[in-house]
């Protein structure tokens, strides 16, 4: 449906309500579509202030902006009243530095990160390389989720060589990558890449009962706390776990903040919230025992009673 002059005028005003206006699904804190989220991520990287218009809250805007821009998809980015494009184009412009020019931001050069690839990881990557000219890429998003895959080089890529292998990063990922270590580890489901990244904000890590058993067998130093009450501890307990009662908590709070600390309960839910609480207290190496004592009894030590 063509827009009326009045509607067109409204969009003329809307796209100029700020220097940078993004028509998106959701808002900048809760994007409701992956494409919108990607553009938000890029705009945040550039550091420019921007306004968003949530097309989901008004069907007239949702349909109207598609007509106004002659562009059938959301998100849509406007700078100085000019339509720049959707997600693909914004990504490409950012990678090539054109978006930054348009926005008038001077980008600090991104330092080349230092990364480590262990021997097994390097071998796994070499085995997976089909030799079709694609390169290994590692993307790290703002929530520190990783994607490791083979893909074509892109404008603005930052190239790192480790263990004789070339790894490509886009600029935003490169900023989050300094000091990472990529390993190849064995898991119950076969081999898998494991990425350790010192830039990650501290979060509760999950620990399986078999990993815990290995820690114990190898004599790895760690502390373990059982967050259940005395009633449940009487039925079943793991000897290594100290009760998180008043005395236990006092002991915990006196520990070095980098000490590996494992929290355990019956099924792994209560221990998770306890783990999160101590993360907020500044502990940085906090683990939650997945599945709790129930999983321990089923997979590691059947002598521990189930209830």
């Amino acid at each position, binding site marked *: 449906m063509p827009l009326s002059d009045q509607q067109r005028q409204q969009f003329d005003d809307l796209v100029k309500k700020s220097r940078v206006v993004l028509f998106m699904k959701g808002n900048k804190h809760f994007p409701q579509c992956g494409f919108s989220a990607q553009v938000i991520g890029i705009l945040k990287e550039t550091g420019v202030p921007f306004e968003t218009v949530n097309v989901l809250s008004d069907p007239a805007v949702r349909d109207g902006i*598609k007509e106004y821009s*002659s*562009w*059938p998809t959301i998100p849509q980015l406007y700078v100085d009243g000019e*339509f*720049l*494009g959707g997600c*693909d*184009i914004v990504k490409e412009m950012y990678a090539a530095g054109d978006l930054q020019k348009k926005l008038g931001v001077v980008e600090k050069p991104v330092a080349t990160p230092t990364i480590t690839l262990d021997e097994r990881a390097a071998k796994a990557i070499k085995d997976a390389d089909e030799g079709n000219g694609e390169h290994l890429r590692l993307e790290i998003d703002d929530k520190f989720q990783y994607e490791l895959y083979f893909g074509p080089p892109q404008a603005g890529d930052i190239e790192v060589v480790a263990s004789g292998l070339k790894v490509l990063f886009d600029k935003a990922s490169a900023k989050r990558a300094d000091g990472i270590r990529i390993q190849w580890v064995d898991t119950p489901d076969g081999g898998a890449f494991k990425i350790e990244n010192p830039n990650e904000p501290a979060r509760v890590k999950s620990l399986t009962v078999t990993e815990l058993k290995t820690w114990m067998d190898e004599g790895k130093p760690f502390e373990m706390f059982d967050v259940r009450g005395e009633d449940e501890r009487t039925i079943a307990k793991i000897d290594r776990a100290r009760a998180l009662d008043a005395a236990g908590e006092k002991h915990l709070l006196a520990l070095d903040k980098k000490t590996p600390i494992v929290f355990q309960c019956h099924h792994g839910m209560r221990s998770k919230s306890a783990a999160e609480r101590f993360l907020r207290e500044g502990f940085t190496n906090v683990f939650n025992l997945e599945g709790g004592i129930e999983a321990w009894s089923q997979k590691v030590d059947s002598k521990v009673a189930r209830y």
Partner: protein
Amino acid sequence: MGTPTEEAMKAAILEKIPDAAVQVGPGSGGGHFTVQVVSPVFEGKSMLESQRLVLGAIAHLMKGDGAPVHAIDSLKTRTTA
């Protein structure tokens, strides 16, 4: 042969750009697709103009809430293969 929706997208693009080599494939989920179009018509056009040409051809398949095409995960326009 692709799915009926993929074929419809291909036909709509070819109607607009008859000399194009068009590939349409599945994307990340239902209603998501990937599209690659190779044609000399993109010569000298910006990425925005090129994509607009292709998206304009399939806009009718993307209109409304029940549209068969929900999103294009990746749209590549090239002048040569």
